[in-house]
């Protein structure tokens, strides 16, 4: 199996820059996800790893082997595409067996045995003689996965593999992919724009934005401690407040937002960066909807309800407080136009400091 390193990878097409210095280190056997909005460069990154694109600058290494200039057929990667890309003129078995024309099956198995083994792995035993056109979308994607895995690649690359499937199927297939991945312990790079999918399936996640990596971390870190305001807003629902530091004690900040003062305890990741904070400095902090509830008695604010969406187990309420958009999750639809909610000081997470903002200018 393989570990993967990207160092300062950038890609320029004529006038447009798709990647501006991507650094990644993926460990052997890891399930690693690239997530970001469309056009952020996550697919270009994957295609650079696969060898379909050559980076304009930077280096791609598999186990310390430099891969720049190596054609895709010599990289020993398996790729699964969003639209399956099954060969329509071949049967399912021929599709799965195609890579075995160029690489020998694992020692001790014949090509035919390997095909049957893979079809069984993706729960498609007995479907070998069918044509791709006779399969459902979910089945096609499983054939595509089996085809990518058949030659035992060192690296499995999945480019938005679930996007063409309906929601329920997506969840089933997601679990199946995860099960197979951990069974085979194959290093996997997964590209998706669906942040929920990214959190559900990955060992680690990289949030990509405008050709750069904003943050790399476990799903928990990404969700609980977003490094930037972009990550905070892109991953899950979030409420972002912009304000000014009034006073600070050893571990607590008092922040003034729209004429109202809040007490927050900055997360430890920020404690160091925040040591230079003085009163008068501007910052932004975020509070997850699940931390902003009517039952908490600290940091209260009164929200004007605008819309509410009934989601079954919860109700998502969109509203406004002094012009700041607010999103809440409640157990029951609100019965009034005004709701008073509060959050605990440690429920807030600082995502942006004035010094950061200055640094970006």
């Amino acid at each position, binding site marked *: 199996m393989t570990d993967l390193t990207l160092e300062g990878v950038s890609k320029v097409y*004529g006038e447009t820059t798709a990647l501006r210095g991507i650094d990644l280190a993926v460990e052997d056997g890891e399930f690693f996800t690239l997530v970001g909005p469309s056009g952020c460069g996550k697919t270009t990154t994957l295609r650079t790893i*696969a*060898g379909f694109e050559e980076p304009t600058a930077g280096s791609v290494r598999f186990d310390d082997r430099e891969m720049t200039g190596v054609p895709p*057929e010599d990289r020993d990667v398996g790729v699964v*595409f969003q639209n399956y890309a099954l060969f*329509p003129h071949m049967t399912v078995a021929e599709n799965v067996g195609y890579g075995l*024309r*160029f690489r020998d*099956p694992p020692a001790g198995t014949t090509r035919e045995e390997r095909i049957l083994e893979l079809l069984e792995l993706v729960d498609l035993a007995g479907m070998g003689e069918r044509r791709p056109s006779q399969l459902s979308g979910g089945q096609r994607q499983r054939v595509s996965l089996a085809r*990518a895995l058949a030659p035992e690649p060192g690296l499995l690359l999945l480019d938005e593999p679930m996007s063409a499937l309906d929601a329920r199927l997506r969840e089933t297939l997601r679990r199946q992919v995860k099960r197979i991945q951990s069974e085979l312990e194959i290093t996997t790079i997964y590209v998706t724009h669906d942040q929920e999918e990214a959190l559900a399936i990955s060992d680690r996640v990289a949030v990509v934005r405008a050709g750069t990596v904003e943050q790399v971390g476990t799903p928990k870190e990404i969700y609980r401690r977003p490094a930037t305001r972009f990550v905070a807003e892109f991953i899950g629902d979030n409420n972002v407040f912009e304000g000014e530091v009034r006073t600070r004690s050893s571990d607590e900040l008092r922040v003034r937002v729209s004429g109202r003062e809040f007490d927050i305890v900055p997360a430890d990741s920020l404690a160091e960066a925040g040591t230079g904070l003085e009163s008068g400095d501007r910052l932004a902090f975020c509070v997850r909807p699940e931390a902003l509830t009517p039952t908490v008695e600290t940091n209260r604010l009164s929200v004007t309800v605008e819309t509410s969406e009934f989601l079954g187990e919860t109700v998502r309420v969109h509203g406004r407080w002094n012009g700041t958009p607010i999103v809440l999750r409640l157990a029951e639809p609100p019965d009034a136009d005004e709701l008073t909610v509060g959050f605990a000081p440690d429920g807030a997470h600082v995502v942006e400091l004035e010094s950061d903002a200055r640094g970006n200018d």
Partner: protein
Amino acid sequence: MTTGRPDGGSARDRGRVRVHVRVRDWLERHALGLIALLTAVVLGVMLYLPVGVVFAEAVFVDGRLSLAHFREVLTDPFYVGVLSQVFTDPLAIGSHLAALGGWILAGFPSFPLGLFGFTAYQAALSTVASLALGLPAAYVLANYEFRGRRTIRSLTILPFVLPGIMVAVGFYAMFGQAGTLNAILGVVGLGPYPFIERNPLAIVIVAHAFYNAPLVARITVAAWESVDVRALETARSLGASPRRAFVDVVVPQLLPAVTTGALLTFIFTFMTFPIVLALGGLQLATVEVWVYARIQRLAFAEAATLAILETIVSLALTYAYLRYESAQAGMSRAAAPPPRERLFPDLRTALEPWRLAIVGYGVLTLVVFVGPMVSMVIGGFTDGGGFTLRHYEFLIRRQTEGASYQTLPWPAIRNSLLFGVATLFVAMPMGVVISVVTTRSGREGGHHSGRWATIIDTLAMVPLAVSGIVFGIGLLRGLVFGIPLIGGWRLQITGVVAIVAAHAVAAYPFVTRNVSPLLADLDPALVESARSLGASRYRALLDVELPLVASGIVAGAAFTFAISIGEFSSTVILASGGETYTMPVAVERYLGRRNGPAIAMGTVLLAITGLSFVVVDRVGGRFERD
């Protein structure tokens, strides 16, 4: 096909196997590049070199660079008509404007057109005639359902590949003094009328419409069928009347197709040759016919100059066409094409004036399209009075008793078939590799390679813009006579190799034109999947792309074969004197003295050309670009 290696054998055997495997691997990795290189060499030697030779012939006078030939042509009223005054003294703008004003004030009197002017004039008339004949066909084919609609739609490709010389024979058989039309008119006591002798220009224009109206029709039908019916329905729901919806939604989508058809028709009829030569003779000479006449009098420099001027015009038009085509390329295929009405749902509606007009149009197309072909076939079996096998007997007798210096039928048929098959083997890889290179570099990476793809595309389409005669002179003066190289060597290519290469160069653009759109429609992820699974670029092409664009390849093969079989202009030059004449050359040689056998030979040619398309239709090739 596992890559398993032999277990037994001595070390030396294994070593040899390893070398063998390595050589095979290397070849496979570089196969695509090697084929592309070979294609470039064939194009360089067989296309750009001859055209360059013609160009050199025109611009060198006594070994020195000079524009004297051009000046001579451009200031000669015989060639450029009234424009000769402008070219003689280009700076006397005042007097030219005065002359223009005087002409307008005098009420647009007729003026001398010159050879180029006349060529453009007849091309313009032919374009109008082709549109007039082709657009109603497009309307009927796109909007009505009737028995045989699909067959007629696929048959619209046929005239395009019919050899000009054969069509000329067909027109003689239909419109000549003893032709079918006069025979029919004779039944009702009219005629006979000397149609061709009295108005050769009209017959030439009808013959051009025979070629190009189907082209206009097929391009327009494709556009019409790609109109999304939901756009029409949206226009109706927003308050547009059916007529208004047609004008606002359908017409703008048809216009590009009609323009494309008109441009192509103008290009083709500007370069017309066999039709005018056979039906009009020298009194109706176009540039191309005049070039041919000059060559026969060995006035090569003058011929080359005219040929270059003609090529500049047609290249400009072709460039305009390619630019236009690529600008239209973004138009998507409709998800829901408009429904088609039954043409004759019942007897009462069949008698409506509109449907009667359609029937009348149908009769006209029968006269123009079916008439000449059927007349030719019938002409092969009749002899003034009645049925006869005399003409075919003549062909057989000529074969068995003819002297070796005479043009024998069987060698002509055999050569045509052999060259056709050989051309397939050369033109198919050329056409496919150019498709791959242009669609691939168009798709991969950014603006630069996109521009490269356009340049390669344009260079590769040059055969469409270079007339057969230009190509023919170039081949004759360059490759047949030979070009001296350093060290006393001569580059000389003649006979079978030259003919097959010339046919391949003429035919491969049709392979590219058939394969490229299908290739561009394929999901790039298919090739990428194959490559990440270990296939080289060449293997991915063989295993994945080619099977999926098989219908385009088969259609390209049919074109290639038909074009090779029907090719006349360069074959007649390369086959002169030798035993490598083909069917069209034989038809032309018979035509002067014995029309019957020429018609019989033309029928055989028609049968073989038609057969190659029928075979393709059966194996599922498609000639559609939509």
